[in-house]
């Protein structure tokens, strides 16, 4: 439609338009239409995948909550939802006093959709601006009849359009869901306010891609702004729920503005004006920054590293650690915080158990042992999260080979078995470390919220024991790497099947034999259930044997070379 309009305009007053454009922008937007068409062509999969996934997620939340929650359980969950920690995570919780299903969905799940939308915008912007410059493709484009700001503005238009379409689809998906939200104007307000977050972060990324010469660093900076926006409004919302006096903090965050529209409760449109104002300011600043720099250059200089290697960097184990370090660091931080937050729910879980839906109670050990049940269940939950980390880290070994970093290492006095064992060693220890952190965070949170420090050690033990199943999965990943690196993705399949069985198998009343096929159902959810020493031992042996097999396979095959 946009293209059509543009064509028509240029058809009617072609020469006139061109002249005016040249006068206004100094030709800085020349070629916009062509470049936009090209971007649409490039993103013909990227756009629908993002937009449809987020719309589907909305539909899922809206329908699932409406089906699972009836009046009583909704009331019970509201007690749970109204504690300050939930305020920190989900938002100010407008309308939870007289809760309805739409209010509950907006209050509890809106923030996840906002984060998804923000990530979509950050990655789309970075992909069309800094990545293009970093690879040198932007130079080819700019050498043609193309204005200085064309690429940035085209990327912004594309991203804003994605958010607009997403808002439309979200509104439709929500409106026709089992949640039956009324009126439609509130549904629309919700969808548009979520899309607004996407537009704001398109603006934020327009700035960060000017700052760093590297796409990953630029996306990382925009992600850090998102995290900051989340935390700032989190503290404000926590204060609001607890009746403190820091609730003004929520008004300093773009996520806060979107949540302050309070759809289905206050139905305010005006907080979005703040977002719009910020977007305009960000785009103007981005254009000025871009005018002031060379193509391909950043505003911030790349920090210099060490001139010589440190004393420790002498073997492949240290090298493997060095290469996995930054990932492990961020995961450590995330897991520790998550553990602490989930742990501090324990008190609220204990109080709210009475009215909880039977399905959820059953998974967590029933009414009587709800605290132990919850902590044991969280150990399983963290095992799955850490398993995802572990598989990503193990896949790094293949990425090293594919980006030709492994070849020069193996051209030194390093054996193939030694290289694989070093990488595997760091990954195995790293996942054990993360399980320990999860247990410590969970244990401290639980102990603090229950005022019972005897909870700490059983929680740590229960989490740490789950490491064995993560290690068995890692063993599989490394065995596949040794023999058929292309099949490493199978580890994800085993992981996903195991996770689905462990999470939903009981609810679906599946047979024991089927449940046993999951790698996560054998250790035992301590402290609710007994730990199975046999299972722990069997998994550890399996991990060792599989890594050893992987080394055997790796010694036999050709390396991937340039």
């Amino acid at each position, binding site marked *: 439609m946009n293209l059509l309009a543009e064509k028509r305009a240029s058809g009617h007053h072609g020469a006139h338009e061109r002249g005016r454009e040249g006068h206004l922008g100094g030709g800085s937007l020349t070629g916009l239409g062509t470049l936009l068409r090209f971007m649409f062509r490039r993103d013909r999969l990227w756009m629908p995948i993002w937009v449809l996934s987020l719309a589907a997620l909305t539909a899922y939340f809206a329908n699932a909550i409406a089906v699972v929650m009836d009046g009583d359980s909704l009331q019970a969950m509201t007690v749970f939802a109204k504690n300050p920690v939930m305020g920190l995570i989900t938002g100010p919780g407008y309308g939870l006093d007289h809760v309805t299903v739409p209010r509950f969905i907006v209050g509890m799940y809106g923030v996840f959709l906002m984060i998804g939308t923000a990530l979509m915008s950050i990655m789309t912007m970075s992909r069309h601006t800094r990545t293009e410059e970093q690879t040198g493709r932007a130079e080819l484009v700019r050498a043609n009849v193309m204005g200085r700001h064309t690429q940035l503005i085209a990327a912004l238009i594309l991203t804003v359009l994605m958010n607009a379409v997403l808002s439309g689809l979200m509104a439709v998906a929500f409106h026709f869901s089992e949640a039956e939200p009324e009126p439609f104007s509130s549904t629309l307000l919700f969808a548009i306010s979520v899309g607004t977050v996407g537009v704001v972060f398109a603006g934020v990324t327009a700035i960060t891609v000017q700052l760093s010469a*590297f796409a990953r660093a630029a996306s990382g900076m925009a992600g850090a702004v998102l995290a900051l926006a989340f935390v700032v409004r989190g503290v404000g919302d926590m204060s609001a729920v607890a009746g403190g006096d820091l609730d003004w903090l929520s008004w300093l965050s773009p996520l806060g503005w979107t949540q302050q529209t309070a759809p289905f409760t206050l139905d305010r449109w005006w907080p979005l004006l703040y977002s719009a104002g910020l977007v305009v300011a960000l785009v103007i600043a981005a254009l000025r920054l871009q005018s002031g720099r060379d193509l391909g250059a950043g505003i911030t200089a*790349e*920090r*210099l*590293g*060490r*001139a*010589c*290697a*440190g004393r420790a*960097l*002498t*073997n*492949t184990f240290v*090298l493997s650690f*060095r*290469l996995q370090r*930054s990932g492990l660091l961020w995961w450590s931080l995330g897991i520790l915080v998550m553990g602490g937050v989930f742990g501090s729910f324990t008190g609220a879980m204990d109080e709210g158990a009475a009215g909880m839906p039977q399905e959820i109670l059953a998974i967590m050990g029933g009414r009587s042992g709800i605290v132990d049940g919850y902590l044991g269940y969280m150990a399983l939950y963290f095992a799955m999260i850490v398993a995802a980390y572990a598989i990503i880290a193990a896949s790094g070994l293949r990425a090293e080979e594919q*980006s*030709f*970093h492994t*070849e*020069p*290492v*193996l*051209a*030194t*006095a*390093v*054996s*193939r078995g*030694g290289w694989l064992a070093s990488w595997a060693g760091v990954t195995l220890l790293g996942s054990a470390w993360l399980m320990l952190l999860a247990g410590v965070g969970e244990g401290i949170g639980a102990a603090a919220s229950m005022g019972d420090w005897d909870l700490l050690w059983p929680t740590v033990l229960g989490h740490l024991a789950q490491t064995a199943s993560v290690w068995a999965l890692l063993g599989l990943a490394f065995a596949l790497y040794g023999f058929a690196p292309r099949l490493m993705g199978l580890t994800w399949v085993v992981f996903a099947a195991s996770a689905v069985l462990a999470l939903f198998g009981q609810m679906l009343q599946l047979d024991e034999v089927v449940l046993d096929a999951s790698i996560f159902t054998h250790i035992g959810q301590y402290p609710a259930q007994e730990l199975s020493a046999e299972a722990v031992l069997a998994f550890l042996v399996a991990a060792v044997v599989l890594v050893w097999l992987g080394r055997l396979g790796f010694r*036999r*095959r*050709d*390396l991937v*070379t*340039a």
Partner: protein
Amino acid sequence: MTTTTSTPGPASATADHDTAAISMQDVVKSYGRVRALDGLSLDVARGEVHGFLGPNGAGKSTTIRILLGILKHDSGRIRLLGEDPWAKAVSLHRRLAYVPGDVELWPGLSGGEAIDLFARLRGGVDTHKRDELIERFDLDPRKKGRTYSKGNRQKVALISALASHVDLLLLDEPTAGLDPLMEAVFQQCIREAKEEGRTVLLSSHILAQVEALADRVSIIRSGRIVESGALSDLRHLSRTTVTVQVETDIAQLATMNGIHDLVREGTQLHFSADTAELPAIMRTLGEHDIRSLTATPPTLEQLLLRHYGKETQS
């Protein structure tokens, strides 16, 4: 555990002087249906700089990677410093250094860290030599891997290789991204390495470089060695390029033995002559009035051109 020392001096190189540095016989390597090496035989003596010439895709890198034990050959016999490169990869790698044609560095590690790491993994770094090389190659070692240009990544690998005390240097088109100034530094470094008694296998398609450095040359085409020997021997096989300016046309040149590619351009005649037939040709030319004559010795370009025809003409 093997008992190889990490820094064998020139003494150990002379101790087993009878064994060649590299010996490959009838080596075959296939990738699926494609035959990368098709009965390749290559001999490199200890202490020599051996030029390994061939067009892209001829099998140079495959040969070097088989010598490194990174790829496994299908058949044939290979000895590297007297040992099997696949089975003894680790202990052999203490005695050699490798520079790939496309150096990829870790984005987050600085150049200096990569230099030290590779040298240490080989068995040790000569910090004095390293600093001197960093100076000579004019490299900033504090920059992160992702910020280096191709030429600078190449320098990182070269400095790391040259700062290690090794018997053998395997260099796979090592100067592809270097400017002429750095190319000169590189040539000086290779001469020094030769003086220290090291063996160098230098793969290249830059013929001037090989001409300046190599004692002997092997030419590879489609996975086979088609010519091998000292440069002087190979020249013997080639032709001299002759340009003469004449008053009147010399018709009999067209029919003479040993004259090829005769072209007439106004008063100029260009042709290439078989070296063996040169005396007869000169006598014929002497009988006519000649204004000027230039004769240039065969360059490696011409050697390659003879073997590969138009394939190498770019």
